[in-house]
């Protein structure tokens, strides 16, 4: 599919008044050159690649718009998103083309002709001029859409359709095409009839590869923009739906179809995506991940309900959705499990709760505390996403040596130790008072130091300081975990003084 006036269509769609003739210019090699133009401008004899100065010399009042390649790219991607309604396999062909693999999809729209007509009609309604060609090969369709008579090339006739096209239809750069033209080769047939070796020597392999691809002698896969789902189900509506309840109902209904497919394969879904195709062409994609393979459509619905609840604003239904597609992007083997007759094992309910939290807040926010094999307090435990913590090898919690009646580790630990002012009687002795958040606490009991040196094998610069931890209790009963960073005289030379930090609070 070729969007032949992508840039100008984009600008025309935006502007309120209709301007028949204008050009889009960009600075190429230091000169302002025309990169796109409207049909009206083309009728005046202007061409892409022409210098703006030349064009202005002929038509002094020619309206000009600055090129915006990023916006063009975005529009192309949006159109690709929208084309997802025809087939899940859509490939980008920048700057202004798309490849759609409609194998096996066309009958859903009443055949290839009907599909192409539908596509062009809908794009035209959106103000986009498109030329569509359907052929056996990607290269053939590309050439026919741009240089031939757009339409359907019946199976097996691609070769015949491509041969009369000019060389440029082979997706070669302008220079190669010009060189070939000067040597008298104007159309593909001229090239195909001649021996290959001299061309390979003169223009490199790419020219012949393009030729083979167009004629179907070499295979060319379309690189899909989006990952292909393992299974999907979709529902179209003659009248767009806009209510959230309807959307969720549709998702549940599709979920049932999807689950049936997964069931037959003995699989469950780990990652689901709902694509909501808005009537005006925008596509919303919602994704939910689960902790364990899921094949229960009511739960799928529930998870999307959470997702929609947080995305309410980002997912404006506008005029409504005319198509909803549910796909299982990642699936996993899921063997049916024998449930107990008592049926009171709530492990599954917990898994579902974690999934719902994940759907609403992101799976990274539901965590379990998994002990790690290090003695540095802040790294001794990692917050691992709950759905992944089962796979994570958990180091048996090698308990810290307990030499006190009280716990030697705090119940709350600050992510970033808080700087405090502390005074000690002797430089490397325990503190006798400290000030935290503007309040002074007199210490009556202190246990320590517990000396924790940082891991020198991870420390290239050698500038990490040893910490002396103290468990202290204040006169009011506040129990805190303080440390002094740096050893007197050895790591910190006077007159510098070590800093004190509060790292955690005991119960």
């Amino acid at each position, binding site marked *: 599919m070729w969007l032949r006036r992508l840039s100008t269509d984009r600008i025309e769609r935006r502007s309120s008044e209709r301007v028949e003739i204008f050009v889009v210019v960009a600075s190429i090699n230091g000169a302002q050159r025309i990169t796109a133009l409207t049909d009206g401008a083309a009728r005046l004899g202007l061409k892409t690649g022409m210098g703006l100065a030349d064009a202005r010399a002929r038509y002094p009042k020619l309206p000009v718009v600055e090129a915006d390649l990023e916006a063009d790219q975005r529009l192309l991607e949006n159109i690709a998103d929208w084309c997802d309604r025809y087939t899940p396999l859509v490939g980008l062909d920048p700057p202004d083309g798309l490849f759609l693999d409609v194998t096996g999809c066309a009958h859903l729209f009443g055949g290839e002709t009907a599909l192409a007509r539908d596509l062009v009609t809908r794009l035209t309604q959106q103000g986009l001029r498109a030329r569509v060609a359907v052929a056996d090969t990607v290269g053939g369709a590309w050439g026919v859409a741009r240089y031939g008579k757009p339409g359907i090339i019946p199976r097996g006739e691609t070769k015949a359709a491509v041969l009369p096209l000019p060389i440029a239809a082979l997706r070669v750069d302008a220079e190669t095409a010009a060189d070939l033209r000067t040597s008298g080769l104007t159309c593909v047939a001229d090239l195909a009839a001649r021996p290959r070796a001299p061309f390979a020597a003169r223009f490199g392999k790419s020219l012949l590869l393009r030729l083979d691809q167009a004629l179907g002698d070499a295979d060319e896969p379309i690189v899909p923009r989006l990952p292909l789902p393992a299974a999907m189900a979709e529902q179209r509506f003659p009248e767009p739906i806009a209510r959230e309840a309807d959307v969720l109902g549709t998702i549940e209904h599709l979920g049932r179809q999807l689950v049936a497919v997964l069931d037959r394969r003995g699989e469950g879904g780990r990652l689901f995506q709902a694509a909501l195709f808005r009537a005006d062409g925008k596509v919303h994609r919602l994704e939910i991940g689960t902790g364990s393979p899921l094949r229960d459509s009511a739960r799928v619905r529930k998870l999307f309900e959470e997702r929609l609840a947080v995305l309410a604003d980002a997912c404006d239904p506008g005029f409504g959705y005319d198509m909803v597609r549910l796909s299982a992007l990642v699936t996993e083997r899921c063997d049916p499990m024998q449930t107990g007759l008592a049926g009171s094992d709530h492990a599954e309910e917990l898994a579902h709760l974690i999934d719902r939290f994940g759907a609403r807040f992101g799976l990274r926010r539901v965590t379990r*505390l998994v002990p790690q094999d290090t003695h540095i307090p802040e790294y001794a435990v990692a917050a691992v996403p709950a759905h992944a913590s089962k796979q994570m090898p958990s180091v048996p919690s090698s308990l810290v040596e307990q030499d006190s009646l009280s716990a030697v580790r705090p119940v709350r630990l600050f992510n970033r130790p808080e700087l405090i002012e502390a005074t000690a009687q002797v430089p490397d002795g325990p503190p006798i008072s400290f000030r935290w958040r503007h309040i002074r606490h007199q210490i009556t009991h202190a246990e320590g130091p517990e000396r924790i040196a940082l891991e020198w094998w991870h420390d290239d610069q050698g500038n990490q300081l040893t910490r002396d931890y103290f468990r202290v209790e204040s006169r009011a009963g506040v129990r805190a975990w303080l440390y002094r960073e740096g050893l007197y005289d050895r790591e910190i030379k006077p007159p510098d003084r070590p800093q004190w930090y509060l790292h955690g609070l005991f119960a």
Partner: protein
Amino acid sequence: MGTASPQPTLNRLRQTLAEIDPSNAPRLAGAERLVGLADPINRALGGGLACAALHELAPTTPIHLGATSGFALAVAARASGERRQVLWVTTDYAAGEGGGPYGPGLDLFGMASARLLVLRVPKPVDVLWAMEEGLRCRALACVIAEMTGEGAVADLTATRRLALAAREGVSAQNSGLGLLIRHKITDMPSAAATRWEIAPALSQPDAYGGIGRARFDLSLCKNRRGPSGRWTIEWDHHERAFQPALSVGVAAPALDRPDRAPLVRAG
């Protein structure tokens, strides 16, 4: 009526009685479960901290957040037993302001961190939602949620919802215990069954002058079922039990006792 179904009538009468005098509340089979604290408090609470209810905790000053979290975790440890799960809900801001729950510390304190699920949400409103869902889930023994400041979003309506959710979620595994920690004491109205203000108390030093077991100075400011009061209690993290705080030293635990949280001797 008569002999055919005496049970409903009896229940109705019991309920009427309970409305007149809460201390006469009937011990309905299954519905009423309690988490025992220390003796004098249990009497005021009518046996212990009621399950299937919401309880509010707040530190008297911000630095007492450690003690408040400790008390909440101690109650959760008692409510969850050996196997059941506990959910901790916090906001990003609260975790930055007061630190997050620390695994090794929890293990030593008697609440196994392997059974704790930690959820961090962006906004205080989300805490309410997550707590409600957690209380409804029958797989969780206890939900602890915390909010910075007074927790203004947890108003009367919100706490009422939470209290109802706590009552609904009760199952064989779930005691339906909701503990809401506000980082600052408040006098906002709330539907919680009890409201506690918590400060740490000086611990009883061990034989060598070191810091003893965690002690809490609890003020029960609001109690729907009985009198308020103020007590000092001690948490024994080996036995997972509260004890009234004694002013005399207690014998050190025997080294060959049945092991719960292993006590490793240094040196």
